């Protein structure tokens, strides 16, 4: 039944000119796209991805390395670093830098978490920590692209677009894929719109960026001097002209156009309603640490919950502030303080509303940071690192209180249960009820997949509830 509904939604939404006609032909010819759903039911209906942009240091957040502490100030063994890609530390002496913050065990599960994430430690039993992530790209821009699209080649769809394409939208009044951003605590690396681009998928699947200043969604506000009633009149007249035209030429594009003007009109009301936090209680605001309209990560977390409530499928929050090439100790403390409470609050809030079970929350960056010191001196930092880093997930079919995989004693290489970006994507899709093997889209004659064509991609079963 799911299958049929999905096909129908697909058809209805697919008014993309010749593409739609081609699809229609496909359907008529009996060549339905292969079903790509998993055998079992989907655990998660939606995803909230808290993207810690800049690359948080796993060594000061989620991956405790006592041996590295002992090695502090000593040279990094060459056997580990030889022939490895290195970013800004190219050609420089490589010295170990011990963990800058203490860790402790929390919850019944005894998960090890940094002292700089006190709120996270309160929900240690709710989260699964993955300590063996790896990626292939060592600089911010390509690494984000890789994390989002599974390849660093531009022009490919990101995971949010893929998921929209696969599952469709659950909201009639809002875009199904929303991106929110905030800054603070460290260097703000640039962030390109390709990170939420639909690539070769139809553009309706692209992420819509919300802004904290001006129109929350571009052009969602009426022109000066035009009230909502006037806008309604204009749209009614536009649609009337389109109806008249369609009566003469019978063009499905015109029908779609009419429905899109209606959707636009609904968005003009639903978006301002969404971002208006007046209805939120004082307790809620305090729990998140949010001040309405401040554009902070905390406010965005609260907005994320509101978006999730309204059926938005994929919500991505970027916090740009983790690029601690220098002063990693205070840097991590500062940025963590800006995100820790709100991340916790989001999970709690979803939980108390009964939404956590079908909402997958993910917290992590595009890569981790080197066990080697950068800059030296009193305030050393850490460089980009791709061979081992950490993230956590909660809700949406993920087991709580689990630590999965590990890095070596230096926190350099993921040595046990490596999770590649493709594995991570496959797992996320699995939770959403999508079989990543079968989830393809024809482009340039090839069956493109979020998880790439190389094979060997695995679902991280051990963290599934």
């Amino acid at each position, binding site marked *: 039944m799911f299958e049929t509904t999905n096909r129908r939604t697909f058809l209805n939404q697919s008014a993309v000119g010749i593409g739609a006609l081609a699809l229609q*032909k496909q359907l008529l010819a009996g060549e339905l796209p292969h079903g790509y759903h998993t055998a079992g039911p989907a655990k998660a209906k939606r995803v909230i991805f808290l993207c810690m942009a800049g690359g948080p240091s796993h060594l000061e957040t989620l991956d405790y390395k006592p041996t590295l502490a002992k090695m502090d100030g000593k040279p990094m063994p060459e056997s580990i670093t030889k022939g490895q890609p290195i970013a800004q530390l190219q050609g420089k002496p490589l010295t170990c830098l011990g963990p800058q913050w203490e860790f402790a065990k929390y919850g019944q599960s005894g998960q090890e978490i940094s002292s700089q994430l006190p709120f996270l430690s309160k929900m240690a039993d709710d989260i699964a920590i993955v300590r063996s992530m790896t990626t292939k790209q060592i600089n911010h821009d390509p690494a984000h692209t890789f994390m989002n699209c599974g390849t660093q080649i531009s022009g490919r769809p990101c995971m949010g677009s893929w998921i929209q394409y696969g599952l469709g939208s659950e909201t009639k009044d809002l875009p199904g894929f929303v991106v929110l951003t905030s800054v603070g605590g460290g260097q703000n*690396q640039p962030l390109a719109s390709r990170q939420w681009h639909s690539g070769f998928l139809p553009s309706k699947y692209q992420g819509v960026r919300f802004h904290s200043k001006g129109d929350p969604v571009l052009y969602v506000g009426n022109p000066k001097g035009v009230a909502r009633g006037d806008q309604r009149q204009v749209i009614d007249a536009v649609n009337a002209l389109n109806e008249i035209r369609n009566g003469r030429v019978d063009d499905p594009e015109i029908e779609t156009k009419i429905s899109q003007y209606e959707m636009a009109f609904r968005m*003009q009301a639903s978006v301002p309603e969404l971002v208006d936090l007046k209805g939120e209680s004082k307790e809620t605001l305090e729990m998140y640490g949010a001040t309405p309209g401040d554009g902070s990560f905390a406010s965005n977390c609260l907005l994320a919950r509101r978006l999730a409530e309204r059926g938005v499928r994929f919500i991505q929050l970027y916090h740009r502030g983790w690029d601690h090439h220098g002063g990693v100790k205070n840097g991590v403390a500062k940025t963590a303080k800006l995100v820790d409470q709100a991340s916790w609050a989001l999970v709690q809030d979803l939980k108390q509303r009964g939404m956590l079970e079908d909402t997958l929350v993910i917290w992590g960056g595009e890569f981790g940071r080197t066990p080697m010191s950068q800059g030296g001196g009193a305030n050393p930092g850490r460089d980009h690192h791709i061979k081992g880093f950490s993230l956590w997930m909660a809700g949406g079919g993920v087991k709580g209180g689990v630590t999965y995989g590990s890095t070596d004693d230096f926190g350099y290489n993921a040595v046990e249960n490596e999770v590649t970006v493709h594995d991570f994507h496959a797992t996320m899709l699995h939770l959403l009820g999508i079989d990543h093997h079968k989830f393809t889209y024809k482009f340039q*004659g090839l069956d493109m997949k979020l998880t790439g064509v190389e094979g060997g991609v695995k679902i991280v079963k051990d963290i599934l509830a």
Partner: protein
Amino acid sequence: MIVRQFLFLFLVVTSVKAVEVDFQREVRPILSDKCFFCHGFDPETREADLRLDTPEGAYEDLGGYAAVVPGKVEESELYRRITSKKKSEIMPTPESHKSLSAKEIEILKKWIEQGAGYEEHWAYQPVKKEEAPEGEEVDHFITEGWEKSEVEGSEQADKATLIRRLSWDLRGVPPTSEETEAFLNDSSPEAWSAQVERFLADPKYGERMAVWWLDLVRYADTIGYHSDNEMKVSPYRDYVINAFNTNKSFDDFTIEQLAGDLLENPTLEQKVASGYNRLLQTTEEGGAQEKEYRAIYAADRVRNVSEVWLGSTIGCAQCHDHKYDPFTAKDFHAMAAFFDDLKEAGIGKRRPNLIVPTAEESARVAQLKKELESGSVEALVKRDPQFRAKIEADRERWLAEGKLIETTWRMGSLSDLKAPNGTKLKIQKDGSVLESGKVPDQASYGFQLRSQGTVAAIRVDAMTDPSFAEPGGFSRSNGNFVLTGVEVKQNDKTLKLVKAEANFEQKDYPASHAIDGKKETGWAVGGHTREGRKGIRQIAFVLKEPVTLSGEESLTVTLHFQSKYKGHTMARFAVAVSGDSKVDLKKPVGPPAEIMAALEAPERSAEQETLLRKYHLQISPEAAGVRNKMEALQAELEKVQSGMRRMLVSEAIAEPRVTRLLHRGNWMDESGEVVMPAVPEFLKEDTSWEIEGRASRLDLAKWILHEKNPLTARSTMNRLWRIFFGRGLSGNVTDLGGQGQVPSHPELLDWLSVDFREGGWDFKRMVRKIVMSEAYQQRSEVDSLMREKDPANELIARQGRWRVEAEFVRDSALQLAGILKDDELGGESVKPYQPDGFWQHLNFPKRTWKQSEGDDLYRRSLYTFWCRSFLHPSMVAFDAPSREECSAERARSNIPQQALAMLNDPIFVEASRVFGARLAQQDGDVRAKIAWGIHEAFSREGHEEEIAVLEQIYQAQKEKFENEPEEAKAFLSTGNWPAPEGLSPEEAAAWGQVGRVILNAYETTSRF
């Protein structure tokens, strides 16, 4: 509607039974999609050592049996496996997640029964030109298709539709009412061809075609990666516009873009064209690895050149042999090697390397130089006896008083200039030193300094020069320099410097840092910023103990520029000295020591006389007027020169970089064999590829155009066809290869391809062939029967219909408003309205969108600044591509963001209200004005019901604005264009709302 008759359905589904299966159309696509991944071209992924892409492979004896036994289905292992019920046997394997439908199995069965014949993939076969009646070639092939499928074409569209369609297709804007009327009134048989010629001759044709080409070559104004800073390439865009307008032949067009710089004595235009090779995405990101990015750039170029010219995805062979086409990984790297001669930084700023003057600028420069020469003091002295006499008299006076001249600073004479290899330092007329040749990463510049008399302080003036990439800058890199150290020696003895003073200091880079003995610190002047580029930057150093030099003695001075920032050297400087330890930089610089010496000499030599004569001309009050005039001319010359556009173009280095075959595309693996530039192996024989020595980009371009190259013309004509029908003759305009689509009309595509080449690679000729056809002039409406039978319009039994491209949506709105600034072609990219903060996520540096002014707000949208990471949101909404990669086929989506943009983006609100004002100014009553507006926007008469809709909203809005006059004023304040005169605000606003409705109607931006 004409009646269509179907004797049998066109679709292959039902045609299998009766006729022979078509290998190209039916069999090969199945084999390619379902089998080649494991049994195809790529030996690395080939399973069971079986390949099905060649007959030899398919028929091969596999030990008593074969995959395919021609004519014998039951003996063919392939058939047994695809029909097997066993999980362990079935093909394709369950792990591949591919399966064959009953219909596909049936086709493969028939194919084997009928002899399992193979044919080379259609796109790699030689292009053949079939006979066709002259002048009716296009229709000949299309009606042939109709006859075969027993359908009839649609009738001719009405004239108003035709001119509108033609105008969109050739100009990217709809016709004006006047143009439509004139065409409707022209009843001569040549009316259509005359109309075609008019539009082909309209400069808007070049702008329209450029949009198509710029998508292919991924033209943009920013570098793409990370910081996504600006790169200067807009003259390339203008080259493309101009090429289409002047109907440059496609072979020249190709050669100039790929290798314009390698032509003999390339013209400015050819150099500009070679900017093509610089359009790729690049990075400046700190910590990026040069080698990795070299590999990324190489792949980017291979992808683009193969997609643009060959319609092939050779890029897929970066890591492994292509799975669906005969391109190998070696082909990929050999193609990449063609571009190894391009001078280009791996990581870092893209600095312009060509100055592109306009014709006016060139003329002005020539004129100014002429005036500077003929009007100079020297020339006047020669030419004008009266002037000469005055000067002579003044010289006598000066010689008499000369000895009394008292100045603080005297110009130093420099010699023995020393610079790192590849960089040159040369003394200029004015005594300053100019850097040229290679921009050094770091450098120490040494020279001998002569100046007779006491030297207590040494002063260095950093100057700009019009030859610098950054106008007004002080270095040839980003305009800034860091002076990290200064050494002064007398006969190998270092003289101590005690103080440094400058007329400007960049924050954290004070003058004192130039003499603190530390290599890491230095004096800098903010020359990388616009604010920092003012005047001359001066620094003076005080010697601990003054020295006195005789006429022959000199000091050895070395200026160190050893900052970590590359290319931060003073690229033009002058040196002066003072006998006074008290430094005053504001005091002028007086005559050099040798002049003083000559003046003071009891007996002057002939050289000294000449020296004095020359010098006097520079200071004589009698010549002041002339000098002032010359200085003004010189200043203008420098201004014109620094205002000239600059851009990135191809420049070949003598020793090309080395390309290695990278195993699985891994740039860290340096064990692969060295690869020389070459074209794909399987095409070499047909195209007689034989090059002595190292093949160049020019060889590549010529090979692309080789008459036996099966891909170039096919791909180009397939894409040209799409402009005029909305779909390529082969449905996949990106890729003609194995995973592409067999053309609906292969003979027509071939005919066009051969004719394109034989007719001199003439675009306009081919456009005429297409638009003069009856097929082009059909109606676009489709009845339900045809929609079902031929949904994609593969039979071309009707025209296509679609929403126009992003640029043309905005252009047409501006045209309707009458504010489209369309009387000039080309120029720097412009920045029309864009929401505040849209660029907030760009960094290094942070920047904002500096909105253009005046007419630049209303230029055609192809001139809008194309920022790859944040393209203008309204352009994105209407599917303009980011141009990070080749884009041969824009999506045609229909999304709510389009409605939001058209309704609320200030440019559309502004265009609506100005268009509304045009309506208001028409003669007649409200209905007549509305009728005019409909005609203008839709190129046809309005229907009664349409007029009624618009009249109703006019009345309702008029009432509203009369009740709320402040709202009317607010509405009219959107956009910079002034509110109309002679209309009350209420009236103008109400008409503005009518304008909005018309602009937003789908028909306004649709081509049908």
